[in-house]
């Protein structure tokens, strides 16, 4: 049964990824991306990583995708975003894509990946929590600084350059 679910997920995942690449409508593409993200979460569930799966949904669908949709709606062609799909340099791009695909597939097939025994599904949240507070404490904290810098950076970029006069007027 897991095989069946896996193939359904794979089919939907790849299908919606292709849809994202080929649809001319940006909003449709964003929705396709949502489907890709969601099926990826499905893969995580199949691998027994429940916490990661929900994180994937909460962050990618709930955060990043919503932000992208927001971005689309703040553009001036708010109602009809369907632009033309301009294809430039189809030949070279196709060559690169095929080469990359070939290399990656060859890589995956030719490698004897070290495979672990399938562990029975077990709760992961507490183990992740413990690891974050012990072995991976430093990356965890650095991620906090990273987010702080990103936050300040976002404000700096979004700020209009004439802010000073307003600040003075408030005083």
């Amino acid at each position: 049964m897991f095989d069946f679910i896996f193939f359904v997920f794979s089919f939907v995942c790849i299908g919606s990824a292709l849809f994202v690449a080929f649809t001319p409508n940006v909003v449709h593409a964003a929705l396709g991306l949502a489907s890709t993200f969601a099926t990826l979460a499905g893969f995580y569930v199949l691998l027994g990583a429940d916490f990661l799966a929900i994180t994937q949904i909460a962050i990618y669908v709930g955060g990043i995708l919503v932000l992208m949709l927001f971005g689309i709606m703040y553009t001036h062609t708010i109602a009809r975003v369907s632009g033309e799909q301009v294809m430039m340099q189809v030949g070279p791009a196709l060559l690169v894509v095929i080469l990359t695909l070939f290399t990656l597939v060859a890589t995956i097939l030719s490698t004897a990946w070290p495979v672990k025994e399938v562990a029975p599904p077990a709760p992961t949240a507490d183990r992740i929590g413990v690891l974050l507070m012990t072995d991976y404490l430093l990356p965890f904290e650095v991620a906090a600084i990273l987010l702080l810098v990103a936050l300040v950076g976002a404000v700096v970029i979004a700020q209009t350059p004439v802010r000073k006069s307003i600040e003075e007027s408030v005083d």
Partner: protein
Amino acid sequence: MLTWIGNVASLKYFIGEIWLALACCIVLMLPLIPRFKNVRMSWVTIAAILFAGICVLRLPTALPEEGGLFFGMLALDGLSKFFKLFFLISTLAVVLMTEVGREVPDYRKPEFYSILLGILLGAFLTASATDLLMMYLAIELLSLGSYVLAGFSRIEKKSDEAAMKYILYGGLSTGGMLFGMSYLYGLTGSTNLIAIREALEASQIHPLVFFVSFLLIMVGIGYKISAVPFHFWAPDVYQGAPTSITAFLSVASKGAGFAAFIRIFYTSFLSLNGEGLWEPVAQLDWRIFLSILAIATMTLGNLAAFGQNNVKRLLAYSGIAHAGYILVGAIALSEAGVQSILFYLITYLFTNLAAFTVVLILADCNGVEEIEGYRNLGTRSPWLAFCLGVALFSLIGVPPMAGFLGKWFLFAAAVETLDPWCVAAVVAGLLNSVLSVYYYFRIMKAMYLEKNEGAGPVKSHTVLNVVATAMTLPVLLIILDGGRLYDWTGELSKLLLG
């Protein structure tokens, strides 16, 4: 077997970084308190940098027992100490340049310094990370801040363009690097660099998958050091970003790229054979690939610099070429190679900062970025012209300057190995040094030989003059005691290898 030190016990070796993180917040929050509203945040920043400097200087170059901090996340070794000092000096210069420059308006300086301190922390961690996860986070912290600072002067369209190009290329290449790292993790089952080497040595891994992983990681690092196929962002970003940030990117960011390079490649993809020489892991002799990369980088960088009229852009291409030279030291795969890279980075630090300080003075105080604006600088401002001249001579590698010594050690280390690819790279490096004379001399010619009647004396600022002088003097004086400095870099070129 290495002993990993736990989180709490590691803290005493981590005070500098903690202070930087704190200062990053303090600089941001302090202006919100009415009493401190008019305090210049540059003082806080400089204090933070100096304090971190003291902490770094007091760090030992190795732990009492061999091992890493924070359960193997960070290394405490000579290399990390060297790079931390390197970043501190460059950031200090950038802070001074920003404080007196006019590119960043006063009311935005707190944010600027906050992000700069964040970047500095990222650079610190890049230099000492021994775990792929930590390395990725550190590089990302460094890059993310750099994207913002590159687009900091929001009034200029060029700056926006620079930030946009930087972030697009950056996102793609760090994504590629992360993908490569995931392959490496899949192959070896560990993210610790030392454990990865051990796993690579123990197992028979297909060369193809290793090559893909190597290549993808090289994309990320090549982007940071602006090596050739990944260099397209450099000229536009250098030109568009505020000049002080350009200086920072050309020195500290590139240095961080090399730190990551040495850390990942020399720890994971090489094994030390006991005679001060490294050997590539059995799966792949990646030296050939890197030497081709080095030759391409220096040649293309130099050739592209020929037609440039904008000095910042020209220095960007010069920076690309210099990344190529430094890669020559990297492919020597010997302890002398690492040592010479560090030495070269010292010379490059002072040389480039000297050059950029003069460029900043001209761009910021006089609004001149094109070579035409440098005409007659020799009489208009003899001292600045002298500083820039010294820097340019050093970049070429003319004997009495520091750049000469740097190149000398680099090429010597590469030739010593007698590897045909290394020798080829050295020959290319020498030819390229000759090539580069042309475009550096275009600036020299403009400064000393061409007339420019209309232009008055150069406006400048005392602090900037001091910075220019402080950066120029080492370039001139390193030759006096180059040997001892070289020995010092030898002490600091030790990595934590396990």
